């Protein structure tokens, strides 16, 4: 294979494995149509050392207004998440697994719901007090800001205010809609 073939093959294989919607064709189609950024999943957002959740049985919210598979890193609410998805670990997208405690202190992101094209404010809470669930590792960093902006950062271990800082998994809880296009009230940032 030429290097281009190889690249196309790699990318399409990866994309096909991860998502049907956000493939190479979508990305090229986007370029053709000049549409706004359709997020392509980060290449190798996690190494093989990281359990990707690829073969974990899917689930749904049962609500057409909240589309997607909460056990997939692609699920719309996870645009800024970094950790194991509690929905693969005995919890759900918004609740902790049995016996784990949700940290009351957290960071906030803004994700677009594809059902209504609205931007929602998402509270990314860590569930704490038990060992890591070690499934469905998902590290998306869209609109994440550095540690000196802690309320927008996902590299902080957010098990604060819980009896133990042992990290179990992470949830993405809808806490409201964002003002305008961007929750921060500023311009659209594709960080």
């Amino acid at each position: 294979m030429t290097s281009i073939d190889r690249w196309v093959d790699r990318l399409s294989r990866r994309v096909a494995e991860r998502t049907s919607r956000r493939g190479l064709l979508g990305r090229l189609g986007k370029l053709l149509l000049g549409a706004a950024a359709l997020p392509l999943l980060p290449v190798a957002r996690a190494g093989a050392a990281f359990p990707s959740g690829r073969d974990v049985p899917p689930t749904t919210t049962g609500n057409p207004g909240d589309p997607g598979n909460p056990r997939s890193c692609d699920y719309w609410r996870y645009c800024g998440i970094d950790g194991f998805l509690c929905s693969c670990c005995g919890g759900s997208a918004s609740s902790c697994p049995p016996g784990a405690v949700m940290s009351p202190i957290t960071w906030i992101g803004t994700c677009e719901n594809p059902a209504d094209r609205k931007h929602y404010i998402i509270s990314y809470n860590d569930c704490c007090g038990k060992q890591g669930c070690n499934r469905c590792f998902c590290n998306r960093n869209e609109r994440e800001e550095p540690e000196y902006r802690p309320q927008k950062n996902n590299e902080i271990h957010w098990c604060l205010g819980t009896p133990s800082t042992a990290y179990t998994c992470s949830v993405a809880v809808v806490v409201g809609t964002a003002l305008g296009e961007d929750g921060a009230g500023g311009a659209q940032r594709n960080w």
Partner: protein
Amino acid sequence: MRVAATLLCLVASAAQAELAPETLGRSERVARPEPHWTFYLDFQLANFQGRYVLIDGDDVEYLAHLSAGQFPSLAIAPDASEVYVAETTYAYGSRGERHDFVTVYDTTDYAAQDHITLPTGRRALMASRQRMTLLGDPRFLAIYNYRPATSVSLVDLKSRVHLSETPVPGCHLLYATGPRGVSMLCGDGSMLTLRFDEHGVLAGQERGEPFFDPDADPIKTNAARIGQSWYFVSYAGDVYPVDAAGERPVFGEPWALVDHDVEEAGWIRALLSGGKAGPWKPGGMQLAAGHTGRKELYVLMHPTFWSGGLGDHDFPGAEVWVFDVARRERLRVIELRGVGTSLNVSPDAEPLLFVAGVELDTEEQGLEIYDAQSGEFLREMHEYGDAILGFRPFPAAAFAGEQR
């Protein structure tokens, strides 16, 4: 199945209605256990610590997990109300003060409810699952100590305290026997049995005659419990039944799992059979399991041609042989997709066979579930963790009222 319904379903009834804010701080709870649920021990090689993961074998749903320290042990109350995990940790990770303790979990929220301190530095750190057992009277929990002098600790679960430590020189591991007793395997092939009274005070102990010859053919310590009997499998492929219903164990006549007269296959026959011609032997870690209702014994077996005869007792199985322990005959053979290192059988009338398998091509470990009756492969679990060291089912007694 979880008790709490997912709130997501409720927040928006119309497709285009804006999603309402959700409640923060919720943790799931767990329903009453079902027979097809099982714990498995996920063992982390980097620090030799474990996690117990609870799954539903019907859909490989991940229900909950429990953190645990070095070489943990798990026991489950017969009514499935509580789970007990014996652990060992160090204050500073790999160093500092050592802590040995039992953590008590409620089976509705799987949060640590109680902490029972054990005498430090005594708890045995090893892979065998026979290091801890509830007595017939489930108020008492017995723990095997190895340092390397051996002893038995007795814990009163009612008062949540460690009651006593009894030295048992030369005897090892624990097999619940009678109303409030434990039997142990001694180096000469005999059993030592300790009996406790209703307060947990040692009431007597006696050591029997050897019931097997550990020099000629040792038995594996991972025994299968069927009804009131233990079934031990030997290296060479015999079964030693031990009736543990009374105050002292009663040793049954051993019988053979394999035809001891099968000769090693010549190379043509070996090649044509995929190496499966010639003698077979039992082997694996949790290599035997029993089903009380059906009086069935499940054993991991492999052809000795594969292993070259060496290390057979730990060699993974290519097939699961199922025996009727009443009639002492082989009922059926379940061919595994790859090989299996540990197995277990659910206690219900339509049992599932859980196997910690290794796929031969990729050498990937996996958690595989088979129909224990038909032998059909049903499903497997992905992303189970680091390494599966065995299974711990809920006791059959927990479902006694629900069984046909």
